């Protein structure tokens, strides 16, 4: 779609993609350990994918934009800014809620306050473990916000990020990975979307982009 022209859109080289993949791998390794300890199951990770995505394609990043998902979002503050999000398809969100609270949400796509706060707590623990690993790796401060929870159609959830990024850009670098546990019954998606202005600093901190002193 060449109708989108934006000079601030970053062209990623192979080296950049490798570095971002590696950053995400290390963060997710930490996160998977935390999740595994919480639910007492082994967690398998996919190789992270790094891609420049048009904002208008965000609603389809999770496949069917109408499928029902639970999303836990954490805003990153500090030296590097951006968003991280854990997204669980409805069935997995249900299983996770059961593992953590002992009670299962009913079939009718309804999450009680207890389940919402359980998901928020998961987001808190997983998000902190992810950002902690990145802090040590990049020697930058990354502070998590209080996680917020949404439960709705995938496309509608992703629109929130389009709104946030849309003032500055028409595209963004999306770093994503999928994870599964308990023999595929539990699966989820993880997204790291650095703010366009923070991507450069991430790459500089990872020493694949020369520091620029102005």
């Amino acid at each position, binding site marked *: 779609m060449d109708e989108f022209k934006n000079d601030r859109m970053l062209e990623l080289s192979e080296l950049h993609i490798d570095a971002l993949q590696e950053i995400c791998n290390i963060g997710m390794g930490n996160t998977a350990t935390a999740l595994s300890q919480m639910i007492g199951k082994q967690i398998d990770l996919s190789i992270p994918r790094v891609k420049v995505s048009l904002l208008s394609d965000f609603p389809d990043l999770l496949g069917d934009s109408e499928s029902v998902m639970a999303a836990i979002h954490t805003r990153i503050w500090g030296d590097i800014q951006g968003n991280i999000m854990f997204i669980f398809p409805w069935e997995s969100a249900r299983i996770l809620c059961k593992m953590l609270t002992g009670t299962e949400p009913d079939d009718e796509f309804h999450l009680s306050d207890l389940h919402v706060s359980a998901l928020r707590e998961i987001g808190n623990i997983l998000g902190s473990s992810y950002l902690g690993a990145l802090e040590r790796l990049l020697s930058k401060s990354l502070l998590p916000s209080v996680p917020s929870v949404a439960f709705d159609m995938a496309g509608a*959830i992703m629109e929130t990020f389009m709104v946030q990024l849309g003032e500055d850009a028409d595209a963004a670098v999306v770093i994503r990975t999928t994870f599964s546990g308990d023999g595929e019954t539990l699966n989820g998606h993880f997204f790291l979307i650095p703010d366009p202005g923070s991507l450069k600093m991430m790459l500089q901190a990872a020493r694949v982009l020369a520091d620029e002193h102005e």
Partner: protein
Amino acid sequence: MSGQEIRVKVSQYKIARPGTVLKIFGLGSCVALVLYDPEAGIGGLAHVLLPGPAPLTREGENNSASSYKYADRAVEALLGEMEKQGAEIKKLRAAVIGGANMFLTPDIEEKDMPGRPGIGSRNVEAVKKELERFEVPIFGEDTGGSNGRTITFDPGSGEVLITNYKGDRKVLAPHENGTGRMAVE
């Protein structure tokens, strides 16, 4: 309702005639603007991302395709295109849908300005303000809340079907006099 279905992605606007429906899947904090001219048998749908106003370029005007993500540019462009294709602005009726606040705590919606209304409601206000400027009456509105919506607009009847993940259905339909009615099925 046989025939084609056109999907309208964010920052796009599309026009259709009876026999073709216009669709947005999973509308969250964005706003869908429906314009309908019953006499010319023509309908349009815009998918607005931000309240705007669109930033100006150095030449003083912003006509890039991505500028249609802003309410002011989207409304103006959709109106212009409909007129070009035979609609009469005076006959147009509008429906405004969307503008939900998806997340249960507001920090993502408002990273800079806590305390301001959420981006969803600002999108709705911006689109309505533009409609007022062009004196286009609104026959139906389904905005706000915390749920996403899927919408299907039929330029044959002017009806807008709104569904959500819970399976709720709502129809916005224009009256002949343009005031509109709302039916909950």
